[in-house]
């Protein structure tokens, strides 16, 4: 079992955001988290990736319960197992495309930056500063960065919310293609029902 979530509860300033969540994710399965804006999707992803601590309940990743781990051990899990495609992209503005991807490479089996850039059609942009990219281009860089370490879990927070139908399709195909190649688990949060059709084996949950 990749993830095991037991009685998960998350409160922020006395407001209950997540309450009594229980679910498992098997290896090779994907998770689609559906929910309207403000329903707690980002919070859930942050809890699952160890960026937030739950108010109650347990989160197991590969049988390690987060609260039993040291902070540095959780950092290590993120560095070696997780890839992130953030809702707000969060590229580093003073670095160029190549450097943004290169920055987080930390494993021997990390993908070659050139291959990623090529695969995402960013050939011509590799030396360009990310602050000068279009939104769509920036999103592709963010995806490339999320995949650079060949992670076994990819967290994608609303990867398509700002995209039109055409680009939504392109991005989703791209991400799913990558997960197929590396046999990794994709955890996507969205309020965008269009995405549903791209998944065949999904655990779906509504918040």
């Amino acid at each position, binding site marked *: 079992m990749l993830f095991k979530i037991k009685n998960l509860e998350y409160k922020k300033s006395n407001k209950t955001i997540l309450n009594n969540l229980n679910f498992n994710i098997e290896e090779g399965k994907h998770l689609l988290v559906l929910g309207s804006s403000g329903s707690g999707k980002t919070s859930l992803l942050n809890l699952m990736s160890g*960026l937030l601590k739950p108010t109650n309940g347990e989160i197991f990743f590969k049988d390690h319960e987060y609260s039993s781990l040291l902070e540095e051990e959780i*950092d290590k899990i993120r560095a070696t197992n*997780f890839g992130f495609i953030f809702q*707000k992209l969060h590229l580093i503005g*003073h670095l160029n495309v190549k450097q943004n991807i290169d920055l*987080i490479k930390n494993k021997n089996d990390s993908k070659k930056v050139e291959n990623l850039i090529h695969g995402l059609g960013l050939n011509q942009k590799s030396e360009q500063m990310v602050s000068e990219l279009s939104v769509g281009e920036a999103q592709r860089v963010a995806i490339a960065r999320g995949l650079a370490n060949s992670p076994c879990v990819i967290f994608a927070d609303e990867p398509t919310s700002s995209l039109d139908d055409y680009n939504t399709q392109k991005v989703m195909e791209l991400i799913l293609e990558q997960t197929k190649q590396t046999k990794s688990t994709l955890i996507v949060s969205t309020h965008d029902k269009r995405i549903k059709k791209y998944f065949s084996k999904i655990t779906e949950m509504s918040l």
Partner: protein
Amino acid sequence: MSDLRFVLYSLKYRFLNSFLSIMLTAFGVSIALLISQFGNHIQNRINLDGQGIDIVVGAKGSPLQLILSSVYHIDIPTGNIAYSQAKKIMNNPQIEESIPLALGDNWRGFRIVGTTTNYIRHYDMSLSTGRYWDQNFEVVVGSSVNLNIGDEFMGVHGLLEDGSSHEEHKYDVVGILKPSGTVIDRLILTSLNSVLDIHGLHKVDNSFEKNHEHQHDHEHHKEEHRDVHEHDHDEEKHKSEDENHHKHSKNDKETNETNVLGSSEITALLIKTKSPIENINLPRSINRESSLQAANPALEINRLISLFGIGSKSFAILSLILILIASLNIFSGLASNLENRMGDLAVLRAVGFSKKRIFKIIVLEGILVVLIGILLGILIGFLLFSILTHNIFTLHTTNASLIFNLDFILIILFVFFAGLIAAIFPAYRGSKISIANQLSRTI
């Protein structure tokens, strides 16, 4: 990407700020280095050149000028004194050693000093090649004087390079001294009589040079007097009393001791006393009872340092302020930059950078600025030092050179730690950011 590369990109991104921090650090370091190096140089020269000289006797005038001219050879003498009077002082039983000096000429800026070999012995120096003088106009040169054995040269009148030359007499180089790091290295030494002769003064009996104890037995003034040259002796500074001596000396040619001594002049007498009390008593009695002046080098130099000290202290404070400003600039650069890059740091934390690594990255950024600043500061320090030593005569002639001493290391350590401390607080704050909050920040 290595952390160092990341830091370099970040410094490049805020180039103006990094540059300012680096320059401030560099100026602080270079000024602090210059002050300590020059202070150290001066102190060394004072100690080395003044070793074992308790009293200096010379013509009346500024005591400091007397010390500087006869001990350190960096000023012009206060005038000449009659050898007969000097002789009386030399016979004082409280004196352990006395060395007469006759100044007046130079060769390419190197002073020609008429003295006895006691002068060389006083500084524990020995020949590297050749021999000591035994004829008039034979010279032994210090290691910094670019003359070789067998060279002949003519002295130039005065103590500065551009004077009229004494074309009648040529000096022969017969010996070269080993380098000692003292003032002797840049002097041309010869017998007292060579200098007196060239200035048309009566020679002195130099038997005391051979045996100090029997100096009263001399009546032999064998050497024939050369023709007296009619020329304006001495620098502008010389007083009319000196000129009287000169005129007087031209007239008599007797070998009678009193006459000879009465007409002979030397510039100064370096004295080592037998007890420290005499360092105070002897000058007092000389100053009171004779037309000579006696000065205590230690006293005068202390006076000079205390005057000079005010200047060097304010420079030291200036360099301290510069270093503090540089550190504050490093701090403010990192701290204000931190606000802009919280998001970036949160991303790094999210993708697995540990708190320690974030801390390290920010500290590294501060250290890099301070290290580049220190290197640049040392470079600027070296450059200014060599420019100053080439252009300031006294530094040039005293062989000022940059040395790696304890002060050097302390200055660099101080600047380094000031920069490090300035980086630690922003680094600590940067490592403690809340990842999720930073990532969800919309505005």
